[in-house]
């Protein structure tokens, strides 16, 4: 029980003199690990040959069946972030990061057993359910902690952590391929052992993060930082209780802002390889297309840090305006680049679009903090991540189905994506309008000052609401 108390929020409160620069590495320890989710596809082909080894047999799993692993994980990411957000906020980051580490490693170990016994439902349960919950809890806990440590630069702070989520795939992808090559034999694919080793590595890494993470003491502020004397119009100094935040129009406007920004980005991210080859037949080879995807991943990661850091200077609302205006221009430019055979312009457009996709993720926690205060920002962020789950369905569906529709109606493959690009630009117009409607949260939703912890309940705020 003494060990469990080590996880308590009270045991993570930093003493005077603790450097806040220890916290971003703690956050990165978690996000670099759970970012592996973006690289799950490297296991797809090997897992279709677990029995046949050199080629798939009828008894082997199909790609369509394996695709559900990622979908289940994404579903549980959104669900767990929403359901456990308040628990994460009130229990503290160490408990949440420890739990995420156990679930993440446990998910890998259970999946390894699933591979060994060739039982797909165990992988659905392991990576999908346990791993998905680890994704949700692990994603939000360091983000809200960083916001509290960096009140002067919340965008940059969350950008650092969420950049790690984008970077996790860079590590996981080559590591997985290397491990499988080490464990594979003429009669064995090596997926099971790779899962076990990766689960163990991720567990150790995440435990380091859970150990070094701290929360600032009440009333702490960075040396030399003076909070603005009066709240600015778009940066609140008041906190809003998580379930009250869900009742505000601001939450749902930002939900749509994120959903539309992610829908536009995710649609091209998943299809970039095929799209580039079909728009530039004979010019962009499959190897070059893989290079483009790699380049886009780097912009995705870099955009998370750069755009969120920029938002500290120009404001969150203006940053999203940049995403939408630039995005509309770039999406409209893509068909022109395809038509004129300008590969450099095409690659430039996609890289900037993807940087804004990443920037959308990393800027939104600071946007929520500006609107709803820091107290329940993690829990509110958890609910907002359902927009990500929704966008994960909208984006690929729009791109794939429109392409199919165009091709079956006689549109050449090279031009099949043009309408999709215009529709994406249209979605960004809607996003622009939603962002324009975001105003400061009405005072009736603000929590009463000096109300404490979990006692900050709806009843308390209801009084404020009726006052």
């Amino acid at each position, binding site marked *: 029980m003494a060990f469990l*108390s*080590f996880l308590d929020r*009270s*045991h*993570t*409160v*930093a*003493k*005077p*003199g*603790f*450097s806040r*620069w*220890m916290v971003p*590495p*703690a956050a*990165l*320890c978690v996000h*670099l690990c759970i970012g592996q989710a973006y690289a799950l596809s490297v296991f797809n082909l090997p897992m279709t040959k677990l029995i046949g080894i050199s080629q798939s047999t009828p008894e082997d799993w199909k790609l369509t069946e394996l695709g559900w692993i990622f979908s289940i994980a994404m579903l549980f990411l959104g669900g767990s972030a929403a359901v456990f957000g308040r628990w994460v906020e009130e229990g503290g980051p160490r408990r949440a990061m420890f739990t995420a580490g156990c679930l993440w490693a446990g998910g890998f170990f259970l999946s390894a057993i699933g591979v060994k016994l060739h039982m797909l439902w165990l992988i659905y349960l392991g990576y999908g359910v346990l791993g998905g919950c680890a994704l949700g809890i692990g994603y939000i806990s360091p983000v809200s902690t960083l916001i509290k440590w960096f009140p002067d630069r919340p965008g940059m702070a969350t950008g650092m952590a969420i950049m*790690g989520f984008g*970077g996790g*795939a*860079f*590590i*996981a*992808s*080559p590591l997985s391929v290397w491990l499988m090559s080490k464990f594979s034999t003429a009669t064995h694919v090596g997926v099971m052992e790779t899962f076990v080793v990766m689960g163990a590595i991720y567990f150790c890494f995440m435990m*380091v993060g859970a*150990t*070094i993470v*701290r929360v600032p*003491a009440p009333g702490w502020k960075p040396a030399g930082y003076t909070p603005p004397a009066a709240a600015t119009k778009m940066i609140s100094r008041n906190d809003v209780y998580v379930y009250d935040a869900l009742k505000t129009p601001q939450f749902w406007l930002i939900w749509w802002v994120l959903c539309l920004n992610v829908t536009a980005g995710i649609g091209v991210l998943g299809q970039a390889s095929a799209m580039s080859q079909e728009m530039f037949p004979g010019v*962009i080879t499959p*190897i*070059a297309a*893989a*290079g*483009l995807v*790699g*380049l886009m*991943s*780097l912009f995705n*990661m870099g955009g998370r840090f750069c755009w969120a850091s920029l938002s500290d200077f120009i404001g969150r609302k203006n940053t999203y305006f940049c995403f939408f205006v630039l995005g509309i221009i770039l999406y409209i430019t893509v068909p022109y680049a395809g038509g004129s055979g300008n590969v450099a312009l095409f*690659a430039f457009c996609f890289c900037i679009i993807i940087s804004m996709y990443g920037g959308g993720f990393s800027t939104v926690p600071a946007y929520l903090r500006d609107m709803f205060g820091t107290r329940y920002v993690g829990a509110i962020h958890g609910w907002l991540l359902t927009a990500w789950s929704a966008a994960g369905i909208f984006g690929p569906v729009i791109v794939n189905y429109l392409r199919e529709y165009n091709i079956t109606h006689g549109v050449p493959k090279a031009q099949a994506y043009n309408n999709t690009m215009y529709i994406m630009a249209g979605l960004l117009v809607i996003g622009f309008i939603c962002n324009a409607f975001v105003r400061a949260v009405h005072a009736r939703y603000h929590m009463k000052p000096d109300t404490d912890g979990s006692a900050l309940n709806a009843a308390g705020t209801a009084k404020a609401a009726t006052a």
Partner: protein
Amino acid sequence: MTNQNTGEAETTSPLKIAAAWIFVGIPLLWGVSQTLINAMQLFK
């Protein structure tokens, strides 16, 4: 290893901060370099 806020000071040494950043920085840089090598295929 507990860190309850008892009012004592806890000065973090620069070495500790550097170690924490190196711990996460090395794998990240390795991953980025691998991706960059793959991305170069676009320009060949």
